[in-house]
């Protein structure tokens, strides 16, 4: 058991596809809200396997994509401070801000280092005691506990030159907001790795309040096809509910230890999402208990007025209202080597995934 190959069998995939065809009678729109699913769906050509009445939509599941320009502008303002080292995950560095990007600032000599983990950022802080090290914390519930663990470690080890600039977000408010806004969704392919942390309780309102089912899915082709089968079955039987397909990784209760650490370090606040605007209690800021590690409380910077790029329809794509192919910039002036919007920068973004696997 290697937990990958076993879930990629072509013959088995064909059989699930036939089972889907057998039960599907009505038009149905299913949305995935995880960048990892967006990538897998395009990489394995899942849409082309499905009958035409089943439409897959990409939602706001790529953390880099939903992060607003103001955040990038503020990170750039921090990077321009003296004696500061910015540490960031790699995919954020090329996201355009209003008039610059972290990549541009790095080229101009600002100290910006790509890290794989917050623990690497903490190491940089320990190795550079005369500098102030700021970690750019983005991501959903999958990533938040790691940031929390980094902050708790910094507190334990008395690292006093380490700061976190949080743009962490939580998934359920965005999933509810899309339906509230009238985006037609008959079922959610639930985010598998977010759910390893949160468990299933956070999705219960979808069926109760909106009549929309949610199947928490793994990332291999057989996982996705089985999840689609389960959602179509729920829809055809008019029985929306929360189910777990990805049982090898997701428990009903989630990861209790990780959740405890997450709520020790973070507290809910309203946050702004690209495409969706401000959503109540959808973001996480550093709690008072760990205030000394909060970059926003520590550094007072002037941030330029946010200027959005007018041609980019990233916001509409994130809501599932448009496909990357509907964008006049797609594969024209906007491609992975020259991304206009965040959805093309991140390899989990819908535009990037379409460009790589589904350009024709």
């Amino acid at each position, binding site marked *: *058991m*290697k*937990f*990958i190959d*076993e*879930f990629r*069998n072509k013959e*088995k995939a064909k*059989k*699930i596809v*036939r*089972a889907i*065809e*057998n039960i599907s009678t009505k038009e149905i729109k299913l949305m995935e809200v*995880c*960048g*990892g*699913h967006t*990538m897998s769906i395009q990489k394995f050509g899942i849409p082309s396997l499905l*009958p035409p009445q089943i439409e897959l939509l990409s939602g706001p*599941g*790529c*953390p880099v994509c939903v992060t607003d320009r103001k955040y990038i502008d503020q990170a750039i303002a921090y990077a321009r401070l003296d004696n500061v080292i910015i540490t960031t*995950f790699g*995919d954020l560095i090329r996201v355009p801000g209003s008039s610059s990007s972290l990549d541009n600032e790095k080229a101009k000599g600002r100290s910006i280092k790509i890290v*794989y*983990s*917050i*623990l*690497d950022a903490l190491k940089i802080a320990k190795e550079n005691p005369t500098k102030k090290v700021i970690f750019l914390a*983005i*991501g*959903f519930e*999958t*990533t938040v*506990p*790691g940031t929390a*663990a980094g902050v708790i*470690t910094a507190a334990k080890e008395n690292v006093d030159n380490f700061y976190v600039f949080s743009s962490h977000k939580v998934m359920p408010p965005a999933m509810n907001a899309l339906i509230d806004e009238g985006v037609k969704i008959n079922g959610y392919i639930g*985010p598998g*790795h*977010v759910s*390893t*942390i949160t468990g299933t309780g956070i999705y219960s309102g979808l069926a109760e309040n909106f009549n929309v089912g949610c199947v928490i899915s*793994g990332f291999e082709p*057989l*996982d996705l096809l*089985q999840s689609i*089968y389960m959602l179509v079955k729920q829809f055809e039987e008019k029985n929306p509910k929360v189910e777990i*397909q990805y*049982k*090898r*990784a*997701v428990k009903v209760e989630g*990861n209790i*230890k*990780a959740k405890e*650490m997450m709520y020790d370090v973070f507290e809910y606040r309203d946050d702004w999402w690209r495409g969706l605007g401000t959503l109540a209690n959808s973001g996480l800021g550093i709690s008072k208990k760990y205030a000394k590690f909060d970059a926003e409380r520590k550094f007072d910077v002037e941030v330029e007025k946010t200027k959005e790029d007018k041609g980019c329809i990233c916001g509409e794509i994130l809501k599932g209202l448009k496909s990357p192919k509907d964008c006049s910039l797609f594969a024209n002036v906007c491609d992975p080597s020259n991304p206009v919007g965040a959805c093309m920068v*991140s390899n*989990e973004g819908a535009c990037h995934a379409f460009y790589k696997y589904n350009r024709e």
Partner: protein
Amino acid sequence: MCLSIPAKVLEINGEVAKVTLGGTEYNASLQLVEDVKIGDYVLIHTGFAIQKLSEKEAQETLKLFNEFEELNKQLDEEEEKTGKRIA
């Protein structure tokens, strides 16, 4: 950012595990998980093990895939009887 990869635990030293990801060895923090043992598979995300993978549940899921095979057989039989293509 949402990507997490299954990795096998090779060694455990306190809160750090040496894991293997498709032939590459890597250190991952065990701060977020409990009861991880050598030989377990864990999901690795941004340097942290975020959940232990259950082989029992994985086998159960694989069994469910076999049910689709059964269903396909039934559809084939029905097709033979009726002479009509059944999706």
